[in-house]
């Protein structure tokens, strides 16, 4: 397959070489990290802003409304106005709150979602680090976010926040299992945990097609459990507006609230991009084995577009969930995980292992 026009490997290596030739190795690493950090920060903020806008528009269309339409073309600058407002707003100090943890909590949530982005490949050669245990790293890092939520709930000195945080804790501990197991199903199929190798492995067909029914089941389970992990949709028990006002971030205001708000969308983006990478081929264009002409046309669409298209499609599916389903109750959420998803997942892994063993996948 020829991806040479969209291959960023040599470009990245050139930059890397340039720094290491002109600086000492220590300073070269520092400069590289700073540049990557800045690029990701800007990307992070832009994606979060875009997703908030998308959510407002999507939910408006689902609810027979227009959505933001006053500030700027199609109301796009509404977000920027909102963001400026949140930045300038007073952060209300909470009486008897644990000040240090209260201030720390939003940053932990942000850092967790920020770190997870490092491993995701956006195009060939376009990723911050290509760890050979990429999936393990992402699972480990993304589950750190719950610490922030727990801290926020605990330190706010608010009963609603505490209930919300406890719900979130119980939920994430359970759903981590399903996320992990459904990814393991694909690891069995791909034989690697490295994201770039997983994507390369899907050059002749995405894993969701390659792995037959077990891959499809794993994809559905991943979608459900990652929605729960991102505290979204029918699983937004930690926030539960109609029950707990705003759950764990009831007491947060101003920029700290903005951080939590942004993280909700970034987590959604991250889980969607993992799902897109692992199940739907990431930046890999859609290929049909044998149809060279068709495949060639598909290759001309840049991988970055493929990646974003798949990711935003999954994001849209998650928004669709959220605006059509009522919320589950906490015991139902846990029942769903422990009694249904987990056993299905374990059997599914067995099936997948069997398929791989027999060489039935293509």
């Amino acid at each position, binding site marked *: 397959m020829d991806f040479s026009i969209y291959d960023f490997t040599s470009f990245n290596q050139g930059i890397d070489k340039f720094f290491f030739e002109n600086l000492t190795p220590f300073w070269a690493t520092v400069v590289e990290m700073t540049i990557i950090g800045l690029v990701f920060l800007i990307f992070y903020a832009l994606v979060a802003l875009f997703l908030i806008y998308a959510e407002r528009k999507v*939910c408006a269309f*689902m*609810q*027979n*409304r227009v959505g933001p339409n006053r500030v700027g073309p199609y109301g796009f600058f509404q977000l920027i106005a909102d963001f400026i407002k949140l930045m300038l707003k007073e952060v209300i100090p909470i009486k008897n709150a644990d000040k240090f943890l209260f201030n720390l909590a939003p940053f932990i949530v942000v850092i967790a979602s920020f770190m997870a982005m490092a491993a995701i490949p956006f195009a060939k050669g376009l990723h911050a680090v290509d760890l050979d245990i990429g999936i393990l790293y992402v699972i480990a890092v993304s589950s750190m976010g719950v610490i922030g939520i727990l801290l926020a709930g605990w330190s706010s000195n608010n*009963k*609603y926040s505490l*209930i919300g945080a406890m*719900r979130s804790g119980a939920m994430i501990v359970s759903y981590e299992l399903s996320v992990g197991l459904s990814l393991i199903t694909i690891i069995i199929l791909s034989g690697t945990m490295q994201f770039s190798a997983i994507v390369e492995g899907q050059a002749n067909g995405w894993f969701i097609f390659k792995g037959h029914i077990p891959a499809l089941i794993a994809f559905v389970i991943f979608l459900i459990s990652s929605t729960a992990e991102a505290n979204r949709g*029918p699983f*937004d*028990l930690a926030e*539960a*507006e*109609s*029950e*707990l*006002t705003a759950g764990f971030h009831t007491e947060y205001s101003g920029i700290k609230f903005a951080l939590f708000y942004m993280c909700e969308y970034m987590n959604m983006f991250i889980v969607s991009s993992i799902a897109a990478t692992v199940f739907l081929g990431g930046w890999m264009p859609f290929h049909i084995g044998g149809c060279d002409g068709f495949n060639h046309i598909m290759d001309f669409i840049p991988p970055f577009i493929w990646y974003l298209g798949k990711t935003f499609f999954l994001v849209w599916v998650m928004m669709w969930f959220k*605006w*059509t*389903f*009522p*919320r*589950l*109750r*906490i*015991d*139902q959420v846990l029942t769903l995980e422990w009694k249904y998803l987990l056993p299905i997942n374990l059997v599914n892994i067995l099936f997948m292992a069997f398929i791989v063993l027999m060489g039935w996948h293509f």
Partner: protein
Amino acid sequence: MKEVINPPVRNIEDEEYHINIGPQHPSTHGVLRMVVSIQGETVKSLKPHCGYIHRGIEKMCEKDTYQQIIHLTDRMDYLSAHINNHVVCLLVERALEVAVPERVQYIRTIVDELTRIASHQLWWGCFGMDMGGQTCLLYGMRDREKIMDIFEESFGSRLLHSYYTPGGLMGDIHPNFQKRVKEFITYFRKKIHDYDNILTGNVIMQERTKGVGILTKEEAIDYGVTGPIGRASGFSCDVRKYHPYGVYDKVDFKEILGTQGDTFSRYMMRMHEMRESMKILEQLIDNIPAGDYSAKMKAVIKLPAGEYYQRVEAARGELGVYVVSDGNKTPYRMKFRSSSFSNLSALDHMSRGFKIADLIAIGGSLDYVIPDIDR
């Protein structure tokens, strides 16, 4: 040597953890405060605190004439404002033995049923929102708007109409009224399917409401629970059937009774009621007789000395008004038996042992209007 005193044994089962739901809370639908004693997520007991929007309507009635009282009743259960007006009008008309023109009775019945549908539409939206499906609210509001438009055209206002007067109506209906009501019925027959598709048939919704907040028939009677909530428990209590007013004795409609008495059957009761109301509307809308829109009434209404009680079926249950008159133009004492207040009293019993999320769902299915509780 220091004496060691054993600290008292703390039993976590005995300790109470209270949370205040309200007065400002998205799901209390107003300024109701509930002090909920919880254990983990489970509700142990609940104490509603009323009075945050008490305006002393009953006391104010004592120095108002009967025509003025109509305007106060709008402010009680603002979602069934017409039906509230109706109860006072009926009471005055019965006390004075006024023969109300047939046309007035038809129009009142039609408008009452439209009000009931509008109220249930808003309830459906709010219930969906309490369950976490926020799209429902916008759907309910969208369809309620059609009725509000009909009201606005005929009565000149959208929420607090004060359209009924003792003896008749403020004015005649708009020429478009019948056409628009018929349009609404065809429109809403289609839309109510959407309601079923988005919420009734949803597996999450059914799982969350079936078997939750059960109220048996005996308990419903004990607590004085009426309306759709009482009927969901199997308590046949439709005032329209037992003490017909307006032209309810001339129309064919069913009083649907539930058997389960849980949140889901309360939900289904209202969905059925919307369909029954549309059936009533269809029977009446083409048959409004010609005639005056009001009977001849004296300018100053004085009820003969005595006690009077009148009841109607409001959207939330039985609405009663009790008047003691000493023969003056103002009542000596006026008391409203509001359905929301009685219905709320059963909330503690219904929600014990269920989760906080269930409490919100049960509260949503009770459909209380706070100004109706406090008055």
